[in-house]
Every structure is written in structure tokens, then in C-alpha cells.
């Protein structure tokens, strides 16, 4: 799986917001509030990556229970999918 468009991040009032960099002709798809973990997951999705590879890369960075991490990754993927932002 992979992002169709890179996601841009911006800090507004101490909150990180993410939005797709390129718009398709359907227009603006909405803003996402993201935390640090979600941002890292999204950035790893800029290149084609499998669930296992993504989990392994995140485990290198975070000291976190793998089951919890997989559930977090799935939540991020669900949000991206609901907005039509993933391909493959």
C-alpha cells in the first residue's frame, strides 16, 4: 500500500494538521488532526510498504507493544482509506 498524494503537515496552535498535497478534480477532501505516531506512519506510506514492513520500521523508532502498534497503524490506514488517499 502507498499514499496517492504526499500529505502536508502544518502546526497550528500546537496541533499538527495533515492534508493531501495534491488535489484531484473532486477538490478538497478534508483536514486530519494527527499525533506524532500517526505522522510517522503516514510519512512511511509515501513509498510502497506492507503492513509488516511498516510495523517493523515503527518498532525501530518506538518502544511500544506490537499489538497496540498494529492497531494504531490500522486506525490510520482506515482514516486514509475512508478519504480515498491510499492506492493498492
Amino acid at each position, binding site marked *: 500500500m502507498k499514499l496517492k498524494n504526499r500529505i502536508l503537515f502544518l502546526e497550528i496552535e500546537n496541533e499538527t494538521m495533515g492534508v493531501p*498535497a495534491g488535489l484531484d478534480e473532486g477538490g478538497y477532501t478534508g483536514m486530519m488532526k494527527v499525533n506524532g505516531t500517526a505522522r510517522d506512519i503516514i510519512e512511511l506510506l509515501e513509498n510502497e510498504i506492507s503492513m509488516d514492513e511498516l510495523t517493523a520500521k515503527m518498532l525501530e523508532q518506538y518502544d511500544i507493544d506490537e499489538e497496540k502498534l498494529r492497531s494504531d497503524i490500522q486506525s490510520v490506514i482506515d482514516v486514509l482509506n475512508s478519504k480515498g488517499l491510499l492506492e493498492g
Partner: protein
Amino acid sequence: MNKQNSFTIKVAGFVFEVRPVSRIMYESCVGYYSEEEPECVITVTQEELEYERKLTEIAAAKEKRPDIETTDVMLERCVIHRMISDYVSQHQGAMFHGALIEKDGRGYLFAAKSGTGKTTHIRNWQKVFDDVTVVNGDKPILRLTEDGIYGYGTPWCGKERLNSNTSVKLENLIILERSDENSIERANYKDYMNQLFTQIYIPKDSEGMGRAFEMIHHLSQHVRLYRLGCNMDPQSAVTAYEGMRE
């Protein structure tokens, strides 16, 4: 190329030569004609008109509004607006859908979903105070300067044609919502990002979203955000004004 219809306008400090197909746009640019050397040429081509028709049809389908017009004249206005907005967005500026007024040298920009009553509200300011200038009733241009953000009048000013070719330092951005009672309070940008992104012009090129994003960021640093709940009584202007005197 229909060169004989070409004319030059100065909008928000930018000088454009406009080469339209029809004369309609010339007439709606009264007050913005310029003799200065243009920095950008806006040429309306058949390809641009067809592209605009496609965008309009997609938007009409998305909003379930099959009644949206796609006459050539309307499309031409949209093409010129889009090309100028694109140019502005590349020069630390943005076209913004809202109503901008000036009072006591301060700029107040009202943003609301279509049909909420922006125009009625700014008319209430004019009824209640005798020193209010409507800079633009629909689509002012915002520009970032070293001294903050300034708002400018443009020829795109809604069906009421409320505008003046002037500028004002933008101090307050107000999200206007209908309410039975009038009230105003400070608001956080992060809670209104989705709405702000439907009001700011987002260029279609690959970097366009990033530039719109940056402009919202600058707004959050330079301009106070308020949420105004208002009815359509003139008193709502007093509530708004008093609530923003800090």
C-alpha cells in the same frame, strides 16, 4: 487570440493584462483599470474554457446542483478569476471567499457558508455605524507583508457588487453562524480548519495546497479569529464590534 478586447487592471497591487473573449469582464472591472506595465498576462483560451466547464460540472455534481450555469460568459469570468488567483497564490497572497469591511482603519473579514447572511451582516454594520467601508463583499485578496496581512478589494464582489478599490490591514477574521441570540467569542484556528479551507482559494497545481496551507498558518499568527453567532438584526453589528474591541 482576440487582442482587441485586451485591457489592463491593477488588483491588490498586481498589474494584469487580461485578454478575454467577450467584453463582459471589461465592464465588471470598472475602478481597476490601469495604465501600468503588466507583470502577468491572463489569456482566456478555448482549452481553458473547456477545462473550467469540466471543473464546474464536477463541482455541480458533487454539490448536487445541476442548475449551476455553464454559459461561456460565466465560464470566462471563472477562468480569469482562477488564473489571477493562481498568480496571487504564487506571490504570498490568496483569494479568500468572505466579506471584508474596514472601520477605524481596521479590517474585519467575515467568513461563512454560502447563504448564511454575510451580506446582510455587513449591511447591518453600515446601518449602525456611519464610517464603515465595504472593501469587498465576496472575494477579497489577502497579501502577507512584513507588517501583517492586508486585504484588498477586487472586481469579484458578488451579485450585490459591494467593493471599493482599497486595502486595509486585516485584524479580525470572523466565522459567522446563524443564531437566535447574538454572541461573539474568540476561537481557535485548529477548530475551523475545514471551513477555512473551503473559503480560501486552493490552486490546482501540485504545490497549491501547500501555499494555501501556509497562508492559513500566517493568518493564525497575525489575525485574531472569532466565532460570531448572529441573527439578522442590526444589533448584531454592535455585538460583533463591541466583542472585538480589545
